[in-house]
């Protein structure tokens, strides 16, 4: 499928945002890099790519938006921006009588597409004529003639005449009898002034109802320039992207066209006459993101975020307080959630696979001991556990009072320090000093030291 790499980058980006405890600078930068890479590989215009990155950054770094709100807004932004890149869906709604002039780069697929469309509309009851005005390419007229024969359409061609205007004149009466006239023109470079002048002349003479730009899917960064130039000269009414059956991602062609505001009406998906499809950007995006619509995406974000937990830690830290009781409630909550695995799993890049199975049971008994230890502490000790470390006599006292070993108490203190350090980074997050990478490092350290 086209743009599949982009799809997986977007999916993984959204997943990362959903699953992350904190949306910090490094996380966002990483996601942006991934999305950038896939957009670039899909030939999306570089300026567009960086404009999108800036938008994501701006929202992500906005300190006034926090927690789940930020996650939701980020996912929505990415979804909406990608949709915007591809443009709005618009069906080609032809009036009773219509003429379409096709133009575009050399070998883009104009002549073939004309036959495909002629076939498409003839099946839908239109009386279709093909008009050949490519007097440049050797055997262009034969090509149109043969294609018309294959599709049972009427082709108006002249193999000798070199002036397209004369061909128009020659057939203008005949063409009146048809309700759909598809006009083939020679391939041209949008930057070539002479050729642009020529197509302008044809345009003036023919006054087609639609000017259709044909663009191959694999065209690179030049797509934008070309689309712009053709748009400037003629005001393009719609686009058909060909060769969508290859491995190219179509990003250059699709987005360049979105920028000219001309909708992509059809895509060509093969050499055969019937290989043409209408294009729907929304369903395209849905396939890209692999999960329904925006609503489904947002649900996913919500379900992946333990909002309450994150909020509480945030609040405690904002008050500048994080006590042993907080630690305890954190650990207890983790237990409820199904052990450390879950917390570890929530940190990007960490895997819970290495946590042994009997950990849960051990942890539970340990939690009991810690609870006893904490209840033997003074309020001062609970609020500022640091004083316990400074005065070993306090540890001994708590040990005796609670029936726990000093080793266990020291372990509890270690856990506290670790978690505080880890959570304390939250305050640094806003300033962008602390990033997800450090978090991961901390988490590793944290996990390593937890000996249940």
């Amino acid at each position, binding site marked *: 499928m086209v743009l599949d790499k982009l799809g997986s980058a977007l999916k993984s980006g959204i997943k990362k945002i959903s699953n992350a405890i904190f949306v910090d600078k490094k996380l966002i930068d990483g996601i942006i890099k991934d999305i950038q890479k896939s957009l670039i590989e899909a030939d999306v215009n570089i300026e567009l790519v960086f404009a999108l990155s800036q938008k994501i950054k701006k929202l992500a770094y906005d300190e006034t938006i926090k927690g789940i709100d930020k996650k939701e807004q980020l996912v929505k932004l990415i979804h909406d921006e990608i949709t915007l890149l591809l443009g709005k869906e618009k069906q080609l709604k032809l009036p009773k009588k219509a003429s379409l002039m096709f133009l575009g780069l050399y070998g883009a697929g104009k*002549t073939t597409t004309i036959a495909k469309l002629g076939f498409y509309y003839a099946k839908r009851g239109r009386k279709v004529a093909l008009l050949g005005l490519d007097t440049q390419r050797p*055997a262009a007229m034969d090509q149109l003639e043969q294609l018309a024969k294959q599709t049972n359409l009427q082709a108006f061609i002249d193999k000798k005449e070199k002036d397209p205007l004369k061909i128009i004149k020659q057939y203008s009466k005949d063409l009146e009898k048809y309700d759909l006239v598809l006009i083939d023109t020679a391939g041209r470079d949008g*930057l070539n002034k002479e050729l642009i002048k020529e197509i302008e002349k044809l345009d003036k003479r023919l006054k087609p109802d639609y000017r259709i730009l044909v663009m191959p899917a*694999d065209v*690179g*960064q030049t797509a934008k320039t070309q689309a712009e130039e053709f748009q400037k000269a003629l005001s393009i009414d719609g686009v058909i992207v060909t060769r969508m059956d*290859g491995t*190219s991602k179509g990003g250059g062609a699709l987005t360049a066209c979105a920028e000219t505001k001309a909708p992509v009406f059809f895509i060509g998906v093969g050499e055969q006459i019937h290989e043409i499809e209408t294009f729907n950007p929304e369903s395209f995006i849905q396939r890209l993101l692999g999960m329904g619509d925006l609503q489904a995406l947002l649900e996913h974000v919500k379900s992946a975020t333990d909002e309450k937990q994150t909020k509480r830690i945030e609040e405690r830290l904002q008050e500048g307080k994080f006590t042993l009781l907080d630690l305890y409630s954190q650990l207890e909550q983790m237990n409820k959630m199904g052990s450390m695995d879950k917390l570890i799993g929530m940190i990007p890049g960490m895997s819970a696979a290495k946590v042994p199975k009997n950990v849960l049971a051990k942890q539970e008994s340990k939690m009991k001991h810690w609870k006893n230890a904490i209840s033997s502490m003074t309020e001062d000790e609970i609020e500022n556990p640091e004083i316990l470390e400074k005065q070993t006599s306090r540890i001994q006292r708590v040990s005796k009072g609670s029936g726990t070993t000093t080793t266990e108490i020291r372990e509890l203190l270690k856990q506290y320090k670790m978690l505080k350090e880890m959570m304390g980074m939250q305050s640094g997050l806003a300033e962008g000093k602390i990033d997800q990478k450090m978090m991961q490092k901390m988490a590793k350290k944290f996990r390593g030291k937890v000996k249940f």
Partner: protein
Amino acid sequence: MFGALKEKLKKWITKNKEGDLDIKGHDEKKVDKSPKKQLSKKKKVKKSKVLEKQKDELEQSLEETINTPSEEKGFFIKFKKRLTEEKFEELFEELEIILLQNNVAYESVESIKKSLAEKLIGKNLKEVDLAEELKNAIESILINPPDFIKTIKDSLEIKSPFVIVFAGINGSGKTTTIAKVANYLQKNKLSVSLAAADTFRAASIEQIQQHADNLKIHLTKKDYGSDPASVGFDAITHAKKNKIDVVLIDTAGRMQNKDTLMKEIEKIVRITKPDMKIFLGESITGNDATEQAKAFNESTDITGIILSKSDIDEKGGTAISVSQATGKPILFLGTGQKYEDLEVFDKKKMIEKLGL
């Protein structure tokens, strides 16, 4: 064709010279076209001096940018004269954008980045010459083609005819380029005939017939739908009988991901045993150029590449992409629709055009 890339690279170097490393500022769309002339006026001797000067200033600016934003001066200062990985990333980011804007495939940009990183990270800044290193990196990707005419003439001493198969995706310019190559061979006193082995596309045979007529050369053809390999085979038989030096086989366009069509080109190659297999790409193709070139190289072990439509393209990065993807030389560039619009690919000229 490399005008725009050259311009951007120049700008990059100058910008770094000024110590302005802000990435946001790439809104210089208009620069694409205008100052091209201005630059080509500069003489070579002058250019190297300019680069020398830029090098010095760039070094200075590197030190400046590395030294200034820091608060903890003093102790760290002596370490900062070396290019750190971080700084390299930052510097390369903009170069990366320039290359990508100029249609170099992402994969190739990564490869250039890697080779530059290996060379530059940890190096004393005084020794870092980015323009030179970039030139080296691109130089090692582009390959000088062997002398086309000489290759053919040498081979003709041993066996005849010399057979060339052209393959590529739909509409890339195979048929037109074959006519150009035929014309070029004739100009070099070699006799040529053509094989209409595209028996599929509407009017493909009429198209190549017109070229054959224009150039007054023989075309071997069969009915539409007949086996393309057999058309190629017959053309070779005809050439042997008539002592024709070179047979050019036109094949139908095919997307590189269509197995049956790729098998078909493999069969054509198997039957006709060509002395040369040419992949025909378009210089306007984006990242897919890499995929296309790789696929055709894998299935037919191409001898070389021709990039058509380089007259359209104001970027030029595709040349780097396809070379990097295949390790095969670009033989010619197509520069228009006329028979003479065929340019022998010249690596040196290309690098000069890059302004490196």
